[in-house]
Every structure is written in C-alpha cells, then in structure tokens.
C-alpha cells in the first residue's frame, strides 16, 4: 500500500507556510521546506545547517522557550561546547570551548548580523543586548574562528542571534515573570503588518531584581544594589519592489547590575546602548546584494571606585558593508564583500582624548560543490587597520603620533564537507582568526601615576592569532530519531593578550608606561561527543561529553597577567537534558557536570587591580528545569528554576550562585 501515511492527510490540510519572494532570508519558509534550520553564519550564503562547513549549533525558539531561562546566557549554558560562568544574578560570561573569563573577549556576538560585542573592553554585556527572548527565531553558535566572514574577534566562536522577520513572521506575545531574588520581569513583542508592503516589530522588556546575597570575594568594592534592565527595539522590513527590500532597526537599552570585572573585582556597572541600522537587500541578475550601515553607541560606568566619580567610557562603532552573493554555473557559489569600520572611545579616566581605529576590509568566499556529495568552501578576508589618537594629553606624556600605526591581517576559513552516505556527513575544517586588543589596551585607559609614569594602553600590542583544525562526523540515526556528532579539534593561540591593564612596564621616550601585554601562547585540544534524539512521540533527549585540555606557555605569571586558561578551563563537561511534551504539558530538565577547575581571584590582603591567584572550584552538578501548562490557546503558565539542586552553589571563584526560581505567565495575542 502506497501512502501508508494517508492518515497524515489532515496534517497536509493545514497551511503549508509559503514563501514570499525573499531578499532578506525567509528563515521560516526555508526551514519548513528543508525540514531543518537554515543559517548564513558559516559562509555568508544561506545553507542548511547540516551542509554548513563549520561546527555549529542552532538553538531554536522551542529550545529557548523550553530552557526556562530568563536570559540568553541561561539558554546557552545547555549547549554542547559552550561554557558559561555565572558571577552574579545577571552577570554571566560565555565562551566556546574553554578560555572563559570575566569580560570574555574571544566570542563575537551579533544580533541579525549587527555586532553587539563591545570593542572598548572586548566583551559582551549580555544584559544590555536589545533583544527579548520571545523575539528570537534562533541562536546560531559557530564554534571556532570565523573571522573570514565576521572579521576581528570571531576567534573562539560566534553567536549570531536571529530575530523574527516582521515581514514574514507574525509574533505577538507578552509575558510577566516573578521569582526569587525579588525578580520582576515583563516582556512584550508585537508585530504590525503594513498590508503587503512591510512589517514592523516592536520588542520591549524590563527587569528588576536583587543580586545574590552570597558573600562577595575579598576586595570587592561593590556594595550590591538592585539590578535593573530596560530595553526597546524596533525592526521594520519594507518591500521597495518585487526584488528589493529595505530594513530599519533602532534600539535602546539601560542596564544596571553588579558585575565581576576583568580585574576580578566586583563593581556596580551601568550600561546604556543605542543603535540604528539600515539595510537594503536586492535580488538581482548579479546575485543577492546586501548593503548595510549601522552605528552603535555605548556608555559604560563602573561605580566601584566611588559613586560620585565613576570610571566612565563612551564607545561608538560605525560600520558600512556591501556584499554580493551569487552562483556561477551549477556548482559554484561566491560571496564578495567590502567593509569599512570606525571605532572610537574616549580615554578613561582622562576625558576629551580619543583612541580610535578605522578598518578597511575585503573578503571573498567560494563554495565549490565538487560532487553533489562533496563541497569545498574557502573564505579569505583581509583587514587593514589604522590606529590613531587625538586630544591633548599632559605635556609629559607621549605625543599622539605615537599611535599612528597600521596593521594588516589575513584570516581564512576552509571546510570540506562530504556526505558519505544518506546518514553520514564528515567535515574537515581549518581556520585562522584574529583577535585585536581592545581599545582600552590600545590606549583607551589613561591614568597619570605620578611623574612621568602612566597607566596607559599602548599601540604596540599585537593581535592574538588563533588557528583551528577540526574534524567532525555527523550520523543521523532514524531508528533513534536523532543525530550523533563527534568533533575533534586542535587550536593554537599566538600572542595571547593579558587581561590586566597593568601587566608590563615599558619605557618610551622617557615616559614609563604600565600596560597590558602579549604574554605568550596557548594551545587547546578537545573532543565533543553529542547525541540528540526523540522517542515515544512525546520525549526528546540530549547528552554530550566534552573533554578538553589547554596548555599555556606564558612568559609572565598569573599575578600580573590575570589569565591562566590551562587551570581555569574544566577538563570534563557533561551535559544532558530530557524533555516531555503532551497535550498542554511541557516538562524539561537539564543537568550539567563540570570537573574541578580553578577560578581566578584577587589575592586576599592586596588591592584591587593587584595580584591574582587561583582558587579551586570543586566539581559540581547543576540542574535547571521547567514545567509549563498551556491554560488555553493563548495563555501558558510556567514554573522554571536555574541552579535548582542547592540553595547556593560554588560554580566560580566569585560569589556562589543561588537557586533562581521563576513563575511566568505568557500570553499570545
């Protein structure tokens, strides 16, 4: 009998979501067509996730909802190969494959292709991202360097947060959350369709809560205050013709919270961000052309020194980019790209001067389908950076011309993907990524230290060069309803940058400079084994094991470099999840085990900014969970918990995390 699944006719009677002629990528329709997520984060051209020449994880909207998390790091900590260190109720740092540290600099984070990584300090202020969880279609995690597509700082990995497209998607939802730590949170996402010519989505959210009450480490100058976050984001996509679309985005956020800074002192940080972006997408006979321009403004205050004279920084980055992605013949897809970037910050604590750089970049990608089952992708990028300084420094300081320097760096990504059988896919990849020193290290921090001595960033720092070599095997197991993946990688890091701004002392033209420094090399080798699957209709599960070894070869001790990746990266991480959904119920649980490792902390009895030492973190198991009940077609009630196994737990060398329990009412309208 053909059509054994005739009973599924009723399913077909449902609307098959259709595709509108797309210039911006219609992720929803393409995902429905191909039965798997679609990504552009590997090569810049749209690909099925299983075809991407990179090690990737794609977190869907369902995954986000069922995680029970109330912020993005809470979602990411369940992902294989992603490390999250939670230093406070709202303060987490995220890395890929180890190397995690406060103000993690190696992970480039973007929202719909717009960088939200803060260049001035080289980190991502997660609470200040202008995105609501319910506005996210998927989070794409690229493991390893991807500088050839995204440029500087995409070295440990890339996280590209893809939101719903208001032209194609109609998302209308509101939620209120209350819980421990006196948490109160609200979020609303609403889409307005403008006939057939466009759509606008407005997302807004607010959060207020106490930080943990567990003891802070010695020397922390951060009398805890209430943590607050407010964000609004407006996205519009409009048709300008059959083959042309225009996109406009604007956002604003304010976030105040207790953070662990990169010098291992807790402080109270205030973030304010604004952004505007415009983009044109056109489907032409020359290919898919995209031109975009955006600016990000960030204001940062660290209140740890004293509340009336905070450490204050402003940073602006503006980017203009144009790219064309096209297919030549049947087997070759190309992308060519040109980009200009201007990045500037005022010097702290000496306002009025600026350190800035301009970057001209060009890149290309060639995806060659050698056979229907074999493809070879090569991407190459060249960045030309010119550094500068303006303003009037003290007379006994160096002249601004000392900062007139340039830097040219290539980066590449190569990947061979072989679909060996219907169920087996093998990948071999190699990549070179470039991490530039943050603006503070290049001169943004500037503090007279008496006489001709200054704590100052220096323009002579070299970028960190990250090489990554990797082989992976995916095997689809239809009988188990899942996919097994094995991934082995080796990574080298040359000219690693210290975290402290006071690592080295140098003499330049009679001036003594105390600054960050390049401190040596570090290598990492690791394995990722993971399985995701479904069974008995209502159940799904996943498990992963990721052993990793890092070996540092540093010229200077931890006391002054503030980094020791060899000891601060766990050697063994196990993650597992089990979920059940039936009728109105959804129940999910997540376990994470980390073998013992060390955290870095300020040496007791010294001073803030002073020497650091290692503190042992015993191995631990953490548990997160969520139970949800759909009250009716439009309302859902959920109870979720993070770090639920103990009332407080030592997971870092910072303050112990506390159990966080939330109740959430979500309404779709």
């Amino acid at each position: 009998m053909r059509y054994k699944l005739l009973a599924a006719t009723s399913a077909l009677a449902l609307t098959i979501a259709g595709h509108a002629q797309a210039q911006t990528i219609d992720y929803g329709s393409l995902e429905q067509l191909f039965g798997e997520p679609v990504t552009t984060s590997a090569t810049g051209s749209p690909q099925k996730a299983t075809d991407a020449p990179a090690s990737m994880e794609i977190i869907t909207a369902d995954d986000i909802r069922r995680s029970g998390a109330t912020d993005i790091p809470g979602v990411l900590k369940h992902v294989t190969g992603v490390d999250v260190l939670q230093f406070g109720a709202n303060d987490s740092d995220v890395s890929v494959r180890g190397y995690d540290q406060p103000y993690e600099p190696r992970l480039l984070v973007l929202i719909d292709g717009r960088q939200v990584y803060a260049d001035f300090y080289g980190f991502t202020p997660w609470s200040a991202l202008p995105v609501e969880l319910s506005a996210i279609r998927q989070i794409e995690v690229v493991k390893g360097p991807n500088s050839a597509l995204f440029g500087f700082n995409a070295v440990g990995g890339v996280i590209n947060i893809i939101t719903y497209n208001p032209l194609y998607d109609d998302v209308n939802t509101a939620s209120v959350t209350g819980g421990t730590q006196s948490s109160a949170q609200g979020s609303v996402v609403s889409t307005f369709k403008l006939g057939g010519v466009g759509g606008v989505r407005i997302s807004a959210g607010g959060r207020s809560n106490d930080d943990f009450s567990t003891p802070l480490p010695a020397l922390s100058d951060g009398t805890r205050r209430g943590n607050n976050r407010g964000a609004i984001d407006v996205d519009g996509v409009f048709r300008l013709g059959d083959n042309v679309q225009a996109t406009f985005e604007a956002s604003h956020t304010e976030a105040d919270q207790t953070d662990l800074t990169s010098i291992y002192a807790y402080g109270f940080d205030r973030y304010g961000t604004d952004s505007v972006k415009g983009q044109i997408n056109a489907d032409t006979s020359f290919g898919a052309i995209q031109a975009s321009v955006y600016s990000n403004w960030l204001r940062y205050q660290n209140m740890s020194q004293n509340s009336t004279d905070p450490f204050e920084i402003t940073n602006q980055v503006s980017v203009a980019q144009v790219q064309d992605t096209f297919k030549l013949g049947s087997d070759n897809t190309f992308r060519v790209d040109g980009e200009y970037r201007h990045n500037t910050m005022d010097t702290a604590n000496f306002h009025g001067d600026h350190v800035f750089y301009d970057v001209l970049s060009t890149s290309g990608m060639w995806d060659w389908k050698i056979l229907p089952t074999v493809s070879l992708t090569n991407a190459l990028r060249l960045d030309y950076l010119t550094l500068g300084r303006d303003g009037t420094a003290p007379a006994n300081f160096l002249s601004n011309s000392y900062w007139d320097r340039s830097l040219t760096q290539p980066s590449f990504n190569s990947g061979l993907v072989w679909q060996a059988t219907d169920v087996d896919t093998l990948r071999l990849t190699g990549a070179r990524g470039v991490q530039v020193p943050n603006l503070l290290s290049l001169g943004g921090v500037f503090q007279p230290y008496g006489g001709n001595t200054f704590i100052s960033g220096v323009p002579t720092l070299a970028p960190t060069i990250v090489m990554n070599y990797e082989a992976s095997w995916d095997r689809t197991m239809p009988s188990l309803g899942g996919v097994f993946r094995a991934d082995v990688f080796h990574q080298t890091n040359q000219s690693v940058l210290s975290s402290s701004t006071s690592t080295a002392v140098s003499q330049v033209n009679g001036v003594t400079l105390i600054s960050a420094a390049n401190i040596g090399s570090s290598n990492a080798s690791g394995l990722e084994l993971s399985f995701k699957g479904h069974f008995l209709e209502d159940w799904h599960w996943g498990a992963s094991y990721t052993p990793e070894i890092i070996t540092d070869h540093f010229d200077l001790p931890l006391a002054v470099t503030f980094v020791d990746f060899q000891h601060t990266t766990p050697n063994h991480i196990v993650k597992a999840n089990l979920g059940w959904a039936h009728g109105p119920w959804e129940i999910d649980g997540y376990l994470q085990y980390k073998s013992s490792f060390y955290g870095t902390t300020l040496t007791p009895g010294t001073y803030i900014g002073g020497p650091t030492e290692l503190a042992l973190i015993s191995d631990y198991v953490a548990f997160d969970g969520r139970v949800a009940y759909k009250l009716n077609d439009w309302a859902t009630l959920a109870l979720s918990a993070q770090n639920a196994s103990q009332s407080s737990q030592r997971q870092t060398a910072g303050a112990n995390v506390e159990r966080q329990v939330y109740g959430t009412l979500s309404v779709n309208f």
Partner: protein
Amino acid sequence: MKNRTKALMAFAIAFPLSDARADVTPKDLQVMARALGFTEKPATGDVVIGIVYAPGNPQSAKEADDLQKLMGDGLKAGAMVLKPKLVKIDEVAGADAGAFLLTEGVGADASKLAAATKAKQKPCVTTDIAQVQSGACVMGIKSEPKVEIIVNKAAAADSGVSFAASFRMMITEL
C-alpha cells in the same frame, strides 16, 4: 558536455535510482508544494495543479489517484491553494494548469510534458529524479533522510521558471 556528464554521474550517487522506488509520501507532497512557492513571482490564489500520469502504468495511475485524494479539495501552500486535477500524459498538451506534478512511471512519454511546460511556461515538480535529469521536468525532490532539491536549469529556462538567488544556493542545479 564533459562537465554535464560528470554532474549527471555524480548526481546519481546522491540520488540513486532503483526499480524498487520508495513510496511517495505526504512529506514528499509537502516538499513539492512548498518548493513551487520558491519560484520567482509564484502564482497566488487557486492554482490548478495537473497531476500527470500514464493510464497504462498501474504504478503511475495509482500514485496519481492517491495524490489527488491526499490533496483533497485543495492544498494551501503559501499564497497558493493547489487544486488537483488528473491529467493523462497524452492529454497534457491541452491541459489548463498552473503547474504540473509528474508521477513516477510515465517513462519516455514525459517528453510530452516537457513540450507542454515549455509551451505554457509553467513549472513541473516530481519525485522521479530521472525525469529531471532528462529535462522532462524542471524540479525534483527527495524528502528522506533529508530534503534535497534538484533543478534542471535548461528545463527551467525553457519553461520560463526562475528562482530567487538565495534558494538557488541551497539546491543542486544540473
């Protein structure tokens, strides 16, 4: 010519043909219907889809009949509602349809469909990959273990069918 031969040989690796074909499934139909929506300037509203079959071939006839039942009064695919209509291969030249769905087992007579889609400037989709390779049908699909789509560029050009650039990057073209 050499490259085309190489491509066809290679494609057979990915889409192996055999006498014992797998049943066309509802998922195949879903993929075919969705794929039609990725043509540039896709039709909207009620669109008659001609299910082309060979009356003398029991496999083809049954597949056509089952497909018609599966689609019922109409299958909504994006802005289109696909209305099924059985079309004998010998009568395809006179059939009034906005798109064609070619069943398996039509064999060499499928050249009549190629002539019809060229004359009418309409798309054709099938699970019979050999008919795409021969140029009788524009687009072929495979839905298991993962979705693969193949388009015969020459047949598409003859039929006046084109696809968005982003879609072309995700499919195999001959």
